[in-house]
């Protein structure tokens, strides 16, 4: 009975509610929910602040984010390693078929079997995987800083505050995502 509560994935409505609750908690704690600034903070921590004021790590303003991210990693360990869902993500059958055409077999290309990440495709010994991961990561880092926020900062926080700039940014997220998924990934993967 308790097992049915702890292990399985959540319904999308519960998940959405939980994210809104996180927005509420961080707002009450006097902070703005946004994860991508972590990358800027990492730049600052490894010394980029000396060259460029933009990266300067301000302990009073920025340290909370490192605690938050540390918690996020631990939370992933708790939910995915200590109390994992015994079933893989129930992906749509058309999606599985499309993945096969790209050369990714679901769910066996996820070595842990959760359906979270195709780490048998993105392998340490694959040069192609390194290039895709670095280039994709680069676009996420560059884009989120240029946009001044990512999914949490714009799609969740900004839209919850009825921000037009956030809505336009989210439209951009989908333009880029759709172009990549439908036109570029068949050539890249």
């Amino acid at each position: 009975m308790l097992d049915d509560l702890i292990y399985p994935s959540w319904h999308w409505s519960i998940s959405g509610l939980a994210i809104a609750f996180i927005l509420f908690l961080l707002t009450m704690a006097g902070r703005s929910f946004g994860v991508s600034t972590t990358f800027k903070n990492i730049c600052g921590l490894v010394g980029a602040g000396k060259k460029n004021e933009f990266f300067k790590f301000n302990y009073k303003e920025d340290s909370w984010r490192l605690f938050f991210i540390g918690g996020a990693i631990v939370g992933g360990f708790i939910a995915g390693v200590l109390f994992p869902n015994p079933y893989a993500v129930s992906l749509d059958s058309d999606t599985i078929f499309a993945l096969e055409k790209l050369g990714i077999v679901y769910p066996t290309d996820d070595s842990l079997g959760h359906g979270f990440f195709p780490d048998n495709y993105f392998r340490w010994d694959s040069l192609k995987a390194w290039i895709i991961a670095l280039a994709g990561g680069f676009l996420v880092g560059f884009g989120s800083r240029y946009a001044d926020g990512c999914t949490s900062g714009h799609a969740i926080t900004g839209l919850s505050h009825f921000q037009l700039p956030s809505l336009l940014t989210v439209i951009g997220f989908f333009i880029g995502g759709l172009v990549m998924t439908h036109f570029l990934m068949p050539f890249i993967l």
Partner: protein
Amino acid sequence: MKGIIFFLIGIFFGITMTKSEALSWFRIYEMFRFESFHMYGIIGTAVVIGAIIMTLLKIFKVKVAGGGLVTYTPLPLNIKRHLISGTIFGLGWALVGACPGPMFVLAGNGYFFIVVVIAGAVFGTYSYGMIKDKLPH
């Protein structure tokens, strides 16, 4: 001491990203193919409930930690900047199948190759910081 509060909220965030399956590379691919309502349901619920909560906090002038009210500093509207920067982000989001929050949560789940993506994101952020004055804002 305050750090512990954010650490605990972070743990809840990590659990939420995992149990919601929002951290899944496959779910993002499925979302951009419009083959499941799952991700749209999550984001839609979060925004509707989030907007209600933020609006109520503003109406009732609820004080947050530090004694201030709930405020939001808007970005200056620049349609070109928002669309271009968003598109750059979206290209990467679909390719690596993870936005910044889930990247860290995936590492906690034991998918360690994601640190290569995080390294790319840090370098992308650094590159933006070095050339930002030349970009339209």
